[in-house]
């Protein structure tokens, strides 16, 4: 398999220039691939896939009857981000999470931004992720979203846009870490020839950021709270707990006494100081949120408000990733930081605005329509790929509940080569970097590159036939680092002998 006749078909390709030759950052990889004997790349792809099965890096698809876990389809050709692009993204993501954090503190407290009419109050009051229970509360250290996963896309001209903010329980980071483990085994030579920034630090950083919330406690006990093994992201919960070296707990393992949270251990109760919770707000505490929840811990929110335990992410921070609030993020950034947004939003029509709604209904066949309260690729319509009937049905839904819908012009997402039927074909991708806010803000150099494996598709969600790729961020000094040079020298010596 060679890259010789790869065709970018007019899309922005992350690895290749429009003429099909490699971009500078991708050159060592593509050279290496072209050197591999016939069939070798496919063999390595197979080895990588079986590594996913053996490790049980699987997820459950809701509603899938046979109950078997699936692996997320994985393609061994990585996506490569140049140092310059990454610098730009890093600055933009930092700015965005900082502004959204100010926004959350403001709307649960003074509501200045609403009084100044920068964001319409009605949007907050109708937002399903808004938690009145959190009004008047500032979380420990003033941080709401300790872990954010922001979805980015790139258009034909190479511009990055923010597609979505994910501030509730963004998942996928375990795939980033595992994909890297597997690719290191797949292309060891390439790793030694170019300087790809490592991602291994993530779990250490995450644990530090979580322990920071319990500053002052001698040995803070951190736990990861999971809904349990039937949750589709259970693998990730256990992986993060394992890698951080902390306990993974379910709601039943915790108990609240005197506004303090304890874990039930074989030697009695032990106090817990920080909970990285992967349970949604509504299920966290039946005394405060949904009374029928058995996933949470009764009394947890009371303990939280008393300052005896920290929760990451803070309950209520989902307001900031509501798809209708999203359209105001550039204004939110300007309002709190006095800066222009470094990474722009995709132009978005908010159907709650009657003018916008009319425009969306008139041009629905060219739009991507999304339900504001849904995620995971559910409840969306891709206009250009849908039938007349599907479009009509969506128009009806929009008219019935305009607040719940937003629409965006269809962006021709950038592509990355994938192995398809023994050759390379471009497939559309997005990018989800992970931002950890603790004492300082840490952005994992890389992220989850999700790829729409169906030809022509732009829906990258794993529940909708999406797969993933490793993401390589090239280090600032793009020349071969010392280790690579040493390796090259040794190889030369061997050739001369």
């Amino acid at each position: 398999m060679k890259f010789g006749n790869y065709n970018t078909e007019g899309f922005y390709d992350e690895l290749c220039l429009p003429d099909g030759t490699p971009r500078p950052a991708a050159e060592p990889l593509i050279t290496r691939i072209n050197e591999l004997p016939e069939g070798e790349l496919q063999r390595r792809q197979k080895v990588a896939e079986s590594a996913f099965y053996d490790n049980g890096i699987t997820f459950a698809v809701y509603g899938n009857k046979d109950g078997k876990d699936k692996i997320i389809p994985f393609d061994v050709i990585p996506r490569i981000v140049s140092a310059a692009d990454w610098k730009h993204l890093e600055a933009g993501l930092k700015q965005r999470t900082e502004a959204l954090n100010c926004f959350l503190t403001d709307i649960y407290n003074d509501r200045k931004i609403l009084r100044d009419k920068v964001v319409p109050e009605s949007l907050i009051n109708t937002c399903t992720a808004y938690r009145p229970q959190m009004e008047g509360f500032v979380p420990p250290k003033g941080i709401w979203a300790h872990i954010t996963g922001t979805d980015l896309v790139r258009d034909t001209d190479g511009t990055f846009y923010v597609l979505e903010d994910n501030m509730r329980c963004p998942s996928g980071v375990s795939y980033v870490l595992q994909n890297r483990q597997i690719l290191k085994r797949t292309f060891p030579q390439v790793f030694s020839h170019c300087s790809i920034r490592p991602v291994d630090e993530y779990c250490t950083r995450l644990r530090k950021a979580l322990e920071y919330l319990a500053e002052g406690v001698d040995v803070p006990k951190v736990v990861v709270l999971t809904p349990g093994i039937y949750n589709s992201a259970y693998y990730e919960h256990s992986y993060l707990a394992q890698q951080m070296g902390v306990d993974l707990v379910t709601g039943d393992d915790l108990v609240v006494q005197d506004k303090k949270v304890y874990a039930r251990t074989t030697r009695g109760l032990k106090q817990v100081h920080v909970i990285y919770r992967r349970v949604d707000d509504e299920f966290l505490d039946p005394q405060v949120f949904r009374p029928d929840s058995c996933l949470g811990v009764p009394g947890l929110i009371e303990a939280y408000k008393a300052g005896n335990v920290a929760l990451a992410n803070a309950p209520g921070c989902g307001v900031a990733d509501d798809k209708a609030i999203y359209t105001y993020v550039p204004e939110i950034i300007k309002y709190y930081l006095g800066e222009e947004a470094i990474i722009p939003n995709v132009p978005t029509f908010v159907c709650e605005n009657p003018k916008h709604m009319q425009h969306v209904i008139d041009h629905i066949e060219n739009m991507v329509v999304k339900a504001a309260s849904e995620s995971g690729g559910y409840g969306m319509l891709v206009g250009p790929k849908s039938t007349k009937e599907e479009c009509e049905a969506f128009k009806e839904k929009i008219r019935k509940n305009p607040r719940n819908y937003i629409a965006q012009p269809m962006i021709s997402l950038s592509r990355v080569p994938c192995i398809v039927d023994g050759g390379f074909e471009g497939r559309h991708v997005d990018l989800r970097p992970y931002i950890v806010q603790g004492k300082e803000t840490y952005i994992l150099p890389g992220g989850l590159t999700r790829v729409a494996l169906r030809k022509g598709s732009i829906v990258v969600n794993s529940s909708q036939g999406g797969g993933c790729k490793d993401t390589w961020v090239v280090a600032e000094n793009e020349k071969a680092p010392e280790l690579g040079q040493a390796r090259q020298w040794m190889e030369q010596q061997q050739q001369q002998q």
Partner: protein
Amino acid sequence: MLSRVANSIYWLARYIERAENVARSIDVNLQLQLDLPGEERPWEPVIQIAGNADEFFKKYAHVSIENALMFLTFDSENPSSIISCVAAARENARCVRERISSELWIAINQFYLKLSDPEMPKQALAAPHAFYNSVKEFSQLTVGIIQGTMSHDVAWNFARLGTMLERADQTSRILDVKYYILLPDVSMVGMALDTVQWNAVLKSVGAYEMFHRQNSNVTPYNVAEFLLLREDFPRSLRYCLEQAEICLKNIAFPVKSNVESIRLLGKLRSDVTFTTIEEIIRDGLHERIEKTQIRLCDLGTQIWKDFFC
């Protein structure tokens, strides 16, 4: 450690040990059949050891080799089948992935995936000895990984406690069922057929060589003594109970030194340690084993009360 995690690790170890014992019983019976051609009855005791004869006859009209092997190995509705045990072990391992070593998880997951392959039953029936051997090897591999990659802390003690209690239970079951089937009449003691079958019992718990180093005669009496009371044979009832007691004390001391489960296990263990085979035969081997099993069952419940709930 978390009570739920302790519970999962304990059961993870128990289920793997159970899978191994089912495989051992089947394997030996397959061998036995070669020595006693034309006889298909040996499968009934194996199904009885697994404690599921009623279930079996609900599904199958008669006992054939294929029926027995499918039921005991690949029937996921039979909770004691090998695949059910491995699936349950994997489910427990999945619940505590963060607490066990990756190597242990991968070994369990790989074996589970291998068993769930739709081609597997066909392959197993075609080469049963190799297949059941692979189950034994899987169990021994996991025990080795637990031993070699996990700190010998509370979690490890729970795993070993699970292994030892399950093994105690299984060894006594194997002996009980064989005794019952093989000795319907006391006058049969010492017949040629008997020796073949008692050797099979020894092989099923991997005790053949060790037994013969200690005994020159294969008699029901000697076999029962070896499997129940031998101090240093790692599958004997006595050894398993003594080891289990050490683990339980490691778990409980010094915080919970007065728990009921320690008292129950200590009493059971000393009854076994300080008895003789003469006493056992006098009281009735079957009755003695039945009582032991009831006590093991009560002990399991008490451990649950003391540590897991």
